[in-house]
């Protein structure tokens, strides 16, 4: 399970972020409270991604697969971070 979480961590965080945003947009409206919640969720997701990136960098490489998984995990986390920022932009830019 840990290996899968390393492999998919960034993308899972993107998914959690997206569906929370969608839930707020669908059921919570688009007022200031909703925007604040979206901002906080995005910051929290980015913080978790940063922590995971640091932990992944410190993790020892036991064999080829774990090195490969760590590379994929890091790339996924970076992609996830990009996705989180990209998904939050519509809220920041909306009038």
């Amino acid at each position, binding site marked *: 399970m840990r*290996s899968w979480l390393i*492999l*998919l961590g960034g*993308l*899972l965080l*993107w*998914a959690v972020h*997206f*569906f929370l*945003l*969608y839930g707020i*947009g*669908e*059921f919570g*409206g*688009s007022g200031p409270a*909703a925007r604040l919640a979206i901002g906080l969720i995005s910051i929290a997701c980015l913080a978790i991604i940063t922590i995971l990136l640091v932990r992944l960098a410190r993790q020892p490489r*036991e*064999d*080829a*697969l*774990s090195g*490969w*998984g760590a*590379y*994929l995990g890091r*790339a*996924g986390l970076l*992609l996830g971070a990009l*996705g989180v920022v*990209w*998904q939050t*932009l*519509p*809220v920041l*830019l*909306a009038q």
Partner: protein
Amino acid sequence: MRSETGFDPALYDRFPTKGGRPKGEEEELRRIWCKPKGWEYLTVVNNNYVGIYYLGTAFLFFLMAGVLALLMRAQLAAPMLEILPQGTYNQVFTMHGTVMMFLFAVPAVEAAGVLLLPQMLAARDLPFPRLSAYAFWAYAVGGLCFFASIFVGLAPDGGWFMYPPLTSKAFSPGINTDFWLLGIGFIEISAIAGAIEIIVGVLRTRAPGMSLDKMPIFAWSMLVFAVMIVIAFPSIILGTLLLEIERAFNWPFFDATRGGDPMLWEHLFWFFGHPEVYIIFLPAAGMMSMIVAAVAREELVGYRLIVLAMLATGFISFGVWAHHMFATGMPPMTTGFFSAASMAVSVPAGLQVFSWIATLAIGKRSFNAPGLFVLGSIVIFVTGGLTGVMVAMVPFDWQAHDSYFIVAHLHYVLIGGMVFPLFAAFYYWIPMVSRRALSEPLAKWVFGLMFSGMNIAFLPMHLAGLQGMPRRIYTYLPGQGLELPNLISTIGAFMLAAGVLLFLVDLARNFRLAPGGGNAGNVYDGGTLEWLPSELYSTRSIPVVRSREPLRDDPKLADDVAAGRYFLPGSATGLRETIVTSPLLAEPQYLQIMPGPSAWPFAAAVFTAGFFLALTVQAYMFGWVSGVLAVACVLRWLWETDRPVEQAEVDIGAGIMVPTYVTGPSSHGWWAMVILLVVMAMIFIMALFSLAFLWSNQPGFWTPPPKIGAALPVALLYGTALVAALAARRLLPRGAGGSAGLLLFSVLAAGVALWLDWSSWRASGLVSEASGQGATIYALQALQAFATGTGLLMAAFCAARALRGLVSLPRNNSVDLTMLFLAYTAVQGLVAALFGRAFGMP
């Protein structure tokens, strides 16, 4: 080097073994995996046959849906033609879309997985061969009956997405819509059965040593594809179920005048519908990646990034469903989220395209048949992708929505992203299953006609769309500037068809099936394991995999494998068997005894199709009898399985011993059940979403639910059911009878809890026909009743096996799986009881 299971990787150094193999070993393999004769072709379960059947049937549906497309193009060749009457045209375009998406595209790629994966992973077969056979026959029988509806004027006519209220009883009173709703039902079952097979197959039956980083990219794509089916298809299963219930019993899920909402259907449909595009695209992209590397004679550039791109596509594609709904007036902020995700999903797709281009650029590419189709695919898919980014932008989408621009876009994406790669795959892999490869000179004509025909047909549609031609119209007026683009499109469509026809000629001339060996071989110099010499039992021995392209890296591998110098050179038990390996590092864990040919999956599939089709034509008695017989056939087929063999441990080669019967989380059955439960949980989650959506959008129709305190006895009973199910597994070492009794008690507790819950809702005055809330609450209860009924069947099955002395001690797979199912049922019931009350509490 670490181990995942305690297996010592140094044992791999014992292979290839030295010395000869005993006489008769290979003959025994041939006897065990023998060819079918006569009627046995209907009961065969081996992937070499089922895969070919599956692929052939999917291609047949491609041809039939293609003929429908030609009829449409003939009708639209000039204004005011009367080749097809309006009503027939509606049926034809609905069937074209439905058949292409449900009966061709998904089954075709699933079929490719069934055919190729065991060979590519060097497994003897996929882990549930009878499930593969069932999935195929349910699809084939049901699909052909479904298609036949067009010959009697009963084909669905509401578009492939079946939007209510057009498809509600008021506006579609006939049974045409029911044909779609119930007809798609068995295809969903078939797709999910295939997905479970593929996930477990890829993760648990890889050749020893084939860790995830050495897995062929096609296997990665099939893994993501199958997981996406498991997540996406439940949404359409629920949607079709709710719409059929609305039509049959007047429960207003989608009726805005009674607290339903047609937008709910759009959400449920597109949560499946858009990932569906990637469900089709990803396996095709996997094939492309394999073929590109072979035709360029170069290792695929960016293997790791392609794996990441596939995973990312799988995730992000679930965040784009509402871009089909930009014109429905969604809140601007939500629209923004979906617009952003729709643009983002092009990034991983682009990564794959750049990798293919880079591989072709640095390699020694040859413009052979697969190479041409690969190049054509890249050009067409990129064009479709670019227009996709255009329509991801909301203002442009509002202009292009429901116009021929969208028709052009989706055909560029689907033909470039799936049809051309499939043709490349035909040319590339046919030498693996046929005595002769297809003709290279003819292939150039096929490609030329298909590529030019495709562009001539669909490029002008962008223009027609921007000029204002709407989709789904059966004719148009002269003088609007639409005559020329439509005529050109029709000419292109017939050119495309001519290319396909020429391909059929090539097939007739050269395709000679050779499932038992004697195939044309590795014509295009592929480096993966499917090119090892094989027979019906797959490869003679199962190699240790030490690289991503073992055939290129070890020139002696094919000879050593064929000489039986690797794992499982013969049959260790005298039965059909394969090695089950660990999911990450593919370390050998145990020997799976595989079921052989059987008539029961075939019979179960026929009755399953009969059940759905009989309900459609309102032959209810026949339908229910068919349903009962289908269940009986499934139970009969399962009765023969889950039997430990005499030898508890066997030598699978070089003195390496593994068990022959394993239970618990490391068994393949446990994995399959967990995936099935994910499917059920997704259906349930989408039902909860439906309730929340209606509560949010139709608050005026909401009535106060029963008090939350009334749920306490319900919760206690579900808790009891959960504990009883878990205890049944714990108590098994003390005797099968007590364990089976506890399983039955768990069902009883869940049943009483459901009855109490239902009674409290009835007492609150909530009526299913009165409001969307009532309909959804009782739909949740119906789902729970289905789960409880299935649990009862499983518990009774275990009890019957216990009575016959077929439950092994101290552990047994049937008991394990029933325990899992009943535990899930209890949790689902508890959540349903609390969630329903939480919405609309005063």
